[in-house]
């Protein structure tokens, strides 16, 4: 009799435990916040995407749980306020959140419980990166991942204002911005994001964007066969498409899914900014965090010239009526 039972074997598709080189790195960065003339990489990585099929989602929050465990965050134990969302919103310790909507379909008079996993969409044209005044705090890789580099972040919160989806959150602990990284550390070793790995019904899947779109088409076909005539993909053009895409049973009405923007786009103000102008621009608009943070920023950057402020005022007055409240678009 042996001392222990026979040992298991581990398949190659489980995460590697031997050190391996990351599949992408700084050489693959295509955009850097507050930095112009980023040298374009020699190689183009295949575009990736995470697909969230809302019609298969059971709202179990495994994605939240896996996200917490992988990223070593620990959201606070809050209270129940009469809803299923917990935490109540995205936080610096909760990068993704199931949002629940009870919707009575006027066409069928049937109740539908629309449950959407909220989190960073990894926009092809990332508003957070464009709004960010801190050089190198936000980068975009050629595979589509938009990632925050915390040591470069100044905690000003402009990324939140720049985001059409209201995603980043500032930590009160280290005063830097946090959001979903698309598990860049996992993707770099050939694994999908933790949320996709966990998702019990495989409502979240991950792969090349091409494959994900093809997969979405089969799902849409199935949904149409079940009477969801308006089933479709959510991959909004206004932000150049996203690397997190949804299958929606009612793609004609994204906003019924807890205010998913119908036509998200970056605020024209943010679009119009050039260089440090945006810092002043946000200050002029009164959108930015004020006080010590902003003061610190100006002191540190020490680059805002009077003409920048003038330019910013001009932009605000002439080009942008207001930042887009999500509900209105």
């Amino acid at each position, binding site marked *: 009799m042996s001392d222990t039972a026979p040992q298991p074997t581990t398949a190659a598709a489980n995460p590697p435990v031997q050190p391996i080189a990351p599949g992408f790195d700084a050489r693959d960065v295509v955009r850097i916040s507050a930095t112009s003339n980023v040298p374009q990489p020699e190689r183009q990585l295949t575009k990736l995407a995470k697909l969230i099929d809302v019609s298969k989602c059971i709202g179990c929050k495994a994605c939240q749980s896996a996200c917490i465990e992988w990223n070593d965050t620990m959201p606070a134990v809050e209270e129940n*306020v009469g809803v299923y969302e917990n935490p109540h919103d995205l936080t610096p310790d909760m990068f993704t959140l199931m949002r629940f909507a009870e919707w009575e379909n006027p066409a069928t008079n049937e109740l539908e419980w629309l449950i959407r996993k909220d989190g960073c969409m990894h926009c092809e044209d990332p508003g957070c990166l464009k709004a960010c005044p801190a050089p190198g705090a936000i980068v975009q890789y050629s595979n589509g991942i938009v990632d925050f580099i915390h040591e470069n972040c100044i905690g000003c919160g402009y990324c939140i204002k720049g985001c059409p989806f209201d995603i980043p959150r500032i930590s009160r602990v280290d005063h830097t911005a946090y959001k979903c990284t698309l598990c860049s550390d996992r993707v770099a070793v050939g694994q999908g994001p933790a949320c996709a790995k966990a998702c019990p019904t495989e409502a979240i899947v991950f792969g090349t964007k091409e494959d994900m779109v093809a997969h979405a088409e089969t799902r849409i076909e199935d949904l149409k066969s079940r009477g969801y005539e308006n089933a479709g993909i959510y991959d909004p053009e206004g932000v150049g498409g996203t690397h997190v895409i949804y299958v929606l049973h009612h793609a004609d009405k994204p906003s019924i899914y807890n205010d998913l923007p119908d036509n998200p786009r970056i605020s024209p103000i943010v679009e119009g900014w050039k260089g440090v102008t945006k810092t002043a621009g946000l200050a002029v608009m009164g959108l930015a965090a004020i006080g010590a943070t902003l003061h610190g920023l100006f002191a540190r950057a020490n680059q805002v010239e009077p003409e920048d402020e003038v330019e910013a005022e001009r932009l605000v007055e002439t080009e942008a009526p207001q930042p887009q409240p999500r509900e209105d678009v």
Partner: protein
Amino acid sequence: MTNSWTDIKNTDLVVVMGGNAAEAHPCGFKWVTEAKAARGAKLIVVDPRYTRTASVSDYYAPIRPGSDIAFLMGVIRWCIENDKVQWDYVRHFTNAAFLVKDEFGWADGLFTGYDEERRDYDKDSWDYKIGEDGFAEIDPTLQDPRCVWNLLKAHVDPYTPEFVENVCGTPKDRFLTICEMIGECSTPTKTMTSMYALGWTQHSKGAQNIRGMAMLQLILGNIGVRGGGMNALRGHSNIQGLTDIGLMSNLIPGYLNIPTESEPDWQSYMSSRRFAPLRPGQTSYWQNYEKFMVSFMKAMWGDAATAQNDWAYHYLPKLDVPAYDGMRMFELMNHGQVNLYFCQGFNPLLAFPDRAKLTEAFSKLKMLVVMDPLKTETSHFWQNHGIYNDVDPASIQTEVLELPTTCFAEDEGALVNSGRWLQWHWPGATPPGEAKHDTWIMAQIWTRVRQLYQDEGGVFPDPILNLSWDYADPGDPKAEELAREMNGRALETVRDPDDPTRVIAEPGQQLSGFGELRDDGSTMAGCWIYTGSWTEDGNMMARRDNNDPDDTGAYLNWAFSWPANRRILYNRASADLQGRPWDPSRKLLEWNGERWEGYDVPDIPPTSRPEDVGPFIMNPEGSSRLFSRGMMRDGPFPAHMEPFESPMANVFNPKMRGNPVARVFAADAERFATSEEFPLVATSYRLTEHFHYWTKHNPVNAALQPEFFVEISEELAAEKGIAKGGRVRIWGKRGQVWAKAVVTKRIRPLTCDGKTVHVVGIPLHWGFMGSARKGWGPNSLTPFVGDANVETPEFKAFLVNIEPASEEPVA
């Protein structure tokens, strides 16, 4: 489960009723989404609440808690009326043709033989007519008015769609749509699967709920086939294993029975367990009972169990009541008749009904021993936690020992999943502090007790002193030693009965299947259904080959599935009378002219000719039972019964309360509520963010669902002035709790018996220990009564009231 999780992908229609698979078993529910996406399967959910399972369903209907039998009998009635019956299956594979005694009948909600005084039936009339040849009489034409089929037709006749609407509150049009969807599965090429859990078991007639669906599945020909079956989604990771191994008052491993007082010796015990076939040529596999029983006695007492001493039969306790189940023990405890109580990884203070009674009972113990990885409410029952556990420690004289155990991450062994797979696991972490394996703790306790008997003598020490205990380290048996003991081995040379020159196993060798067990003492096996799990070839439970030829979902080389590595029970019924698969695209087994072959281990002797031997080999009939004879205490057919606490009277018999044969202790009968006092129907359930009372200890899960709440409709909230997220008080006949209110469109008022019935949903994950906010379990409110057959508490239908609570309760 008759089938396995992975087999669900083969279905065409999933009915989730009496459960909430997406929330309670999310990764198993994956196979529902797989069937939907890949096969175009449909999902029906019938539940008092629009659950997260309902959120991905194709069709949903509400139902009043505790009225499931009426719904199911209504579906059966509709199927018969509309000829949605798989006739070949019903004629050949069920007992539809069997003739029932003329005395049997049903009237006023009761079957023949009811004795109100004893709250029990005389079941003599609930049986077949036996012919002169000793076999049951049948009428294959189904014309005889006393055949089961015609009795069933008469039995379900009252359950019209209007009756269902009135009793269940399910709108008639929704009920009929579901009947039509289900009826489509009566063809041999469409199958339906039933996925249920405690939503069906936790009623005073829970076993009859399940029989109702099992009968429907037989009528549709959906038992034994891929994508079909009755799939009980067990709640805990190894509750299947603990039941298999018989850790219940009246069980011996492998579903054998502890004797009763009326069976004082081996002969009287075995006389009712010969299981002669009821039809010619049938297998009636329980005829082998004695082989399993003797092998068990040899596993327990080795050389001290001999043919001469009836295999040490006198060592076994003899019961004077059906069972000393958990609820009976708490009743006895509350009467001061229990001194010492052990809780091994079990938190009964929150898990059994009527918490006030439980606290009182625990306070009367001399000693409570809790073995657990966590600090539980039970081990702290005596500690004051303000309103959450309002007790006076000084007045509680119970001594408590709290012993730290390891958890899964630190131990080794097998767990049995819902699909009967025994899967071995390995330790990957060091136990914290002084935590010890349960095996070490049990061995330490037992060897110390044995030592005391050796040193001091005492009352009837024989079964203790003679218990076989030949482990390398008697104080710390290893998982492998115990697993090998359950599998069983030859004690003497085991020979082939048909060819005595052929040796099957030499003494000391592990046996490879329960067909090798003998009733002459030459074999031992702790749990006969596990024989084959650890053979001479090694640990079959540790196998990890995930190949699945032709993607049937069988995975025959992954772990071990009891019995005999079979993945789908009754799988011979997947083929017609001639042995051809009902659905060639979903072939499971096929008769090749000489033997059965296919993707699974045949659930029939492999050379039994299809026309000769029926598929249901465990039954003496060889067929399945639409009429269950005297097997169940509360009737051979399921009949509608109200919960003990109900908003309406039983429409068949207004005087009848609850299940007429359920056990009710005198003091508890006084504590049942009426709908005049408590008009709201409450039901308890799990949420997907938590597991039972464990994950409130996990800060991650505590963050995902932090605080005790109840769910009510917008209409009830408006009526009572309750705001979303507001604090409410819920009280019933036995206690009160405070919770946050989730006001939702997912619960709607029902109309039953002309009255509006409101449902209050009460999740069960909070207590006064752990990382989540302090709260209560529903067991502060639930009645102390269980199912008439198996004593599962009625947690799913009881009465309460609710009101806004303006102030935070003082902790």
